[in-house]
């Protein structure tokens, strides 16, 4: 058994930022456990630019963004174990991990930061009918093949789902000489960022077909084509709108799922909407001393916000380890009337700082107003020209306001058109 003040599970942008912040706050022994061969997480395969505009005020590629944090980590004595898989976390904060150098190791931690990221929804979850031929893959898998392994995963491509990875991959495959026939999106709007639709589809003349889905996949050995169809308001295919599209590859970008198998097994409460742990403003989960940040908590649009959130978690973990936690006066947060979720789900009104609440809406709103209310009293309101499910929103609750909230009350965010 090895003893550490802080064990960080995951060495992507979230884990790295949390570890660095905890160190800055005075935590002595820290180890970061990363399952991949290198630090950086999914950023390593995101060779396009667009990262860092908020945090570094410059436009970086994924590996460049990661490199900045890897360099900072290397300047510290924070330990890093790559190619190391955490297989279990016990209720007593023992992190069990394996790698092929140290073998099977138990790490006993005073505090733990969960930063395992997320995974892509696979084909099976959609139950698309048809063949099981080669050539059906998630956009992220295709991205790894083309960017890290250097092989073309397809040449004539249909993309289902307009999540950001799908949009990025549409452009990427065209730049590599493939033909991207279309991006089909089940919903009447894209779940990706507006800037990605402009830069990755519109600039390359790739059609985005809204209210459209893939209903059948053809081909015995390799995909030979797909049948697409328009869908009605209930997302059901409309008879007579079927269209055969020849292609050798179907890429899926149909959603991301926070990867919480370890969290669930250790008994951390999960939010059914976000798929991530329920946390306080310091990103502490329902289990004392266990924190969560980044895409394992809720899926973010931009890594910059992952970094900021993870610093909050790192600071929270540091305060916990150093015994500097504030006395608890908890209020809950809740999204209603079009607000799908709010993170954090709980706030300690004694936390001594302003608290930023992140939230997502369930549909597109134009010219809407966002209200934050406590006991039906409006605390603040913001006019938003446009709200979409693809763009995470936030509001800041001032420290002075927080202190006035009754203990045990509920802070509600809602949208009004």
């Amino acid at each position: 058994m090895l003893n550490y003040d802080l064990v960080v599970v995951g060495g992507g942008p979230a884990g790295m930022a949390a570890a660095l912040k905890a160190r800055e706050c005075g935590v002595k022994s820290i180890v970061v456990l990363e399952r991949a061969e290198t630090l950086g997480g999914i950023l390593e395969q995101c060779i396009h630019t667009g990262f860092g505009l908020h945090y570094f005020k410059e436009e970086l590629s994924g590996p460049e963004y990661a490199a900045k944090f890897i360099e900072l980590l290397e300047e510290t004595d924070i330990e890093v174990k790559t190619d190391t898989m955490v297989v279990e976390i016990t209720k007593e904060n023992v992190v069990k991990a394996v790698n092929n150098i140290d073998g099977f190791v138990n790490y006993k931690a005073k505090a733990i930061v969960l930063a395992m990221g997320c995974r892509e929804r696979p084909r099976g979850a959609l139950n698309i009918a048809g063949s099981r031929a080669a050539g059906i893959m998630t956009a992220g898998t295709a991205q790894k093949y083309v960017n890290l392994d250097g092989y073309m995963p397809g040449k004539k491509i249909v993309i289902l789902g307009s999540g950001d990875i799908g949009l990025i991959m549409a452009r990427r495959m065209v730049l590599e000489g493939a033909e991207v026939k279309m991006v089909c999106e089940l919903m009447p709007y894209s779940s990706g960022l507006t800037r990605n639709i402009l830069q990755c589809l519109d600039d390359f003349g790739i059609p985005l077909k809204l209210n459209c889905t893939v209903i059948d996949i053809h081909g015995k050995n390799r995909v030979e084509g797909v049948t697409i169809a328009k869908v009605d308001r209930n997302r059901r295919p409309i008879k007579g709108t079927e269209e055969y599209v020849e292609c050798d590859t179907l890429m899926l970008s149909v959603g991301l799922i926070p990867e919480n198998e370890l969290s669930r097994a250790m008994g951390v409460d999960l939010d059914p909407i976000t798929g991530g742990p329920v946390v306080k403003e310091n990103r502490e989960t329902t289990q004392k001393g266990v924190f969560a940040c980044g895409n394992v908590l809720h899926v973010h649009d931009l890594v910059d916000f992952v970094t900021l959130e993870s610093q909050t978690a790192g600071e929270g973990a540091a305060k916990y380890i150093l015994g500097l936690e504030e006395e608890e006066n908890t209020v809950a947060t809740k999204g209603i009337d079009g607000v799908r979720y709010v993170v954090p789900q709980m706030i300690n009104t004694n936390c001594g700082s302003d608290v930023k609440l992140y939230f997502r809406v369930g549909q597109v709103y134009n010219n809407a107003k966002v209200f934050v209310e406590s006991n039906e009293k409006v605390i603040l309101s913001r006019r938003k020209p446009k709200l979409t499910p693809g763009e995470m929103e936030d509001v800041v609750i001032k420290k002075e306001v927080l202190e006035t909230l009754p203990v045990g009350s509920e802070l509600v965010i809602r949208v009004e058109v």
Partner: protein
Amino acid sequence: MVYDVAVIGAGVVGSLIARELGRYNIKAVLLEKCGDVAMGTTKANSAIAHAGFDAKPGSLKAKMNLEGIKMMEYVCGELSVPYKDIGSLVVAFNEEEMGTLTELLERGRKNGVPGLEIVGQDRLREMEPNINLNAVGALYAPTAAIIGPYELAIAAVENAVTNGVEFIRNFEVKAVETQEDGTTVIRSADNVIQAKFVINSAGVFADDIAAMTGDGGYKIVSRKGEYFLLDQSVGGLVKHVVFQCPSKMGKGVLISPTVHGNILIGPNAVDIEDKEDCCTTAEGAVEILEKARRSIANLSTRDMITSFGGLRAHSVTEDFIIERSESNPNIIHLIGIESPGLTAAPAIAVYVRDMLLSFAGKFEENTAFDPIRPKPLRFHELSDEERRKAIERNKAYGRVICRCEGITEGEILDAIHAPAGARDVDAVKRRTRAGMGRCQGGFCGSKVVEILARELGVELNEVTKFGGDSKILFEKTK
């Protein structure tokens, strides 16, 4: 090459026959059209060892089913194949169906099925707390079990090869000719072998193979069934194999745990022309869900991780046909081995072996025959201490490749280098479960491709999903 015996088709039946042939000092070969064993019906079915009340008394199906279920646990033990005797329930939803249960019970008793009983509503609800409130009773068959069907075929071939049987993959039989001396020449597009005796266990293609030997009278209908698989997180949904009582509405669908802790739902039944069409359909999905909700009313599709289709070799005669060829008595045909074919497979293997011995003359016993196929190491099943030791022994067990199922590089290497080992991504998946979990290979798929390429000494873009032209990658990027 001249063999004593050639078995055509490495499904679960052909694989177990090949294993039986390993008991003798003969030259035996198992020919498989695809790149791996278990590529037909064996890889996509209900994975159940049936108790045996379904088959018509006196039929070969009934006889083989009963003998098969008696042998199954032992054979699975010898071959280290997952087996769980969880029992089955045929659920009735009204009084008329309760009447049918009595008929099934009677038929089962005639077939010699032990322990059958009809349970009432309360007992049923105790046994299956999630069952639909409409359910009024069930036929309980304690001897029914769940098994790993493709694991059984893979293990049988591994064991056969270890005992001296040859396995030739990618050998699609194109022509069969009988020579004057009674031996048979079997040709694929690029290979040819000879055998004194031939066993045709080609599943849905057995009638086509029979036609090549001059026996054109068989007709197999390819009957497709679709299934859903649910995540292990809802693995406790049912505790037994839950069938629905056959009625005017048809045979119903089953809901069953799998040996790996998932839940399997299906199948429907659609006769199709194409003997390779395993595509799932939107209509099939609707049909299965609708039927399954009769058993579990609030069945949710949220935990669905995949769906798949499989083909049954349905014979128009309804019974199994296992007989010598009329045109060449040195050939044995196995026709229409559909459900309960998996259950029957160990018994069929012995039945065919004995039939062969009855006319082939005495084969010398292979005194070195080892019936045991050692259990492959499963890292995630080990205790902490065993894991520590495994990694000390082989570092590759310290590298987790498939995070959902906790499969290590060492296990994948074992699968590739086993007798009749894995040559493609799906073959690795069937042997190790890498890629079977909730992400369905999203993360580990590319790593498995890398490991296969490295171990087989090929480029990444030569690695296939399931053999043949199922390549995953095209050329290198610019």
